[in-house]
């Protein structure tokens, strides 16, 4: 842009036409910008008008929140009472009712830790120790068996705490294992490389259900007599091994995206392999793959519900069990909506967190 030689007054700003800005402008540009889109808009509006009001009426206006099952059966609206009346069983399973403050406080502790961890300002070494302490405390709280706390066997654990335990331990253990596998697969040492490739391809080649069956049915056969491994731990191991294989492949993608020059610059400074990976390559590679990694973590979280097939009572199973109670039969819609909401909240928290993390880490 060359400056104008004569000092003419600047061209005055005039307001844009009304039809191009504001709500009206937006509606015109996005909803009615052609006859086809106009028809679509009207159809969608009609559809919404048909479905939304009855749904609101069912879910909120005609609904019952704290009633007996008999009242529910008489009423036409949603029966959220199935949730409120059975909330303790749904959340805690067969955990002894008078002891349920223990899983409750364990879960509150977990949520507090998650909220603290969300903020990157707190990311110091101390936080890592706080996590170790918190997880140990949760475990001890759930288990009991000391200073007057009644011992609760892990076969009685169930509901939300079980889901969260499987998810949190599963994801935190699978992630580093996946990174190690990805590095191993890139290794120049043929033995390590082929081991990692075989592991990843084998695990990815079978469904999680079959791994869970193997862990609960086949694995005990190989143990010497008299030794048993806790069923939850076996399921946990299966989830970890399974998720790690997927994370490994995602991380490998990230490693391949790092330009060769980065390795060369690190090499020429004299950094060794582990320093290069830890200080230069992984911080960049892991950042690139945050979105697909979180996808895997979210789907792994939801996959924990598959433990129902080896008769662990996670929150899916406890909700289902409520439905098999003759009193509450027939309210499966409400129960599953509740369940979906619980899973959605957790998953939304994860994806929201990952988006924030990406923003914080962008340089």
């Amino acid at each position, binding site marked *: 842009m060359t400056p104008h030689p004569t000092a003419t007054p600047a061209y005055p700003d005039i307001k844009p036409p009304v039809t191009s800005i504001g709500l009206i402008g937006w509606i015109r540009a996005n909803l009615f910008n052609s006859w086809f889109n106009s028809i679509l808009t009207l159809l969608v509006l009609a559809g919404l008008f048909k479905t939304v009001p009855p749904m609101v009426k069912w879910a909120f206006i005609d609904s019952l929140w704290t009633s007996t099952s008999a009242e529910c059966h008489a009423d036409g609206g949603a029966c959220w009472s199935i949730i409120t009346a059975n909330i303790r069983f749904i959340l805690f399973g067969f955990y002894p009712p008078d002891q349920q403050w223990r899983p409750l406080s364990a879960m509150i502790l977990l949520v507090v830790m998650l909220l603290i961890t969300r903020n990157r300002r707190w990311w110091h070494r101390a936080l890592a120790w706080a996590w170790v302490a918190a997880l140990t405390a949760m475990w001890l709280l759930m288990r009991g068996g000391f200073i007057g706390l009644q011992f609760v066997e892990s076969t009685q654990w169930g509901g939300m705490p079980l889901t969260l335990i499987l998810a949190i331990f599963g994801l935190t253990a699978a992630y580093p294992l996946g990174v190690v596998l990805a590095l191993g697969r890139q290794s120049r040492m043929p033995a390590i490389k082929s081991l990692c490739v075989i592991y990843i391809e084998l695990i990815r080649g079978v469904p999680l259900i079959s791994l869970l069956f193997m862990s609960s049915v086949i694995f005990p056969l190989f143990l010497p007599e008299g030794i048993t491994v806790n069923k939850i731990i076996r399921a946990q191991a299966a989830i970890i091994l399974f998720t790690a294989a997927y994370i490994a492949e995602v991380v490998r993608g990230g490693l391949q995206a790092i*330009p060769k020059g980065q390795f060369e610059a690190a090499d*020429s*400074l*004299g950094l060794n392999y582990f320093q290069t990976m830890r200080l230069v390559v992984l911080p960049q590679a892991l950042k690139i793959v945050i979105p697909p990694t979180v996808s895997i973590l979210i789907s792994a979280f939801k996959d924990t519900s598959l433990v129902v097939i080896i008769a662990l009572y996670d929150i899916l199973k406890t909700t289902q069990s409520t439905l098999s109670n003759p009193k509450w039969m027939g309210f499966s819609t409400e129960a599953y909506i509740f369940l979906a909401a619980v899973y959605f909240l957790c998953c939304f928290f994860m994806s929201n967190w990952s988006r924030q993390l990406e923003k914080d880490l962008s340089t």
Partner: protein
Amino acid sequence: MSPNDTHTDTLPAGDPAGAADAATKPIIEIIGMHKWFGEFHVLKDINLEVRPTERIVVCGPSGSGKSTMIRCINRLEEHQRGKIIVDDIELTNNLKNIEKIREEVGMVFQHFNLFPHLTILENLTLGPIWVRKLPKKEAEETAMYYLEKVHIAEQARKYPGQLSGGQQQRVAVARSLCMKPKVMLFDEPTSALDPEMVKEVLDVMISLAQEGMTMIVVTHEMGFAKSVAHRVLFMDDGRIVEENEPEEFFSNPQHERTQLFLSQILH
């Protein structure tokens, strides 16, 4: 710093007596070195001695093996025959030796290769802290010293992506210097820069030369070669075709291939 720190004389230093006096022991020795990329014979019988504080410019057409040769010196590329001895250590597959040599040999790349996830200061302190095991504070002081030197200290807290190409390349030079290397290798340091930024990088390299740094520079900047180099090597087709003092090299090239090359780039 190098033992010949007295060599802070003025440029131009085409003087053969300069650092290149035959009495000092070479810091880099390449003897009968060959390299292949698969079937392709990229480097053929390379022989080169570089003495402390000596400055060598390597030029030649693209694909002649210039970059590959200097990348062999810190083992970014592996040679298949012959010997490379750096600072009395022979380059073999011994990882410990390779790391030791890399500590002493700085390298500046065509595309800077700064670490984008670290600030400028962190880029500079990474090597000293993890390889030289310096305390963080000391490493940062050294880093600031060299950032001052390349006139970029005020950018220390920024990330590489926020700097111009010329600034990034100067940071890259400072990053190498923070390791207090005995030799600096430059692999076409100005080729990826916008024209107006070439000078600021060359100025930094010239001041480095004035301080007596041992340098091997692959470049097409013939002005730089004329004023700074003790020796100019011309490579073609994987061989060192001609090797001479800059004055002789430019005014009276011996080899036909050199004459053609010079006529093409000097017009």
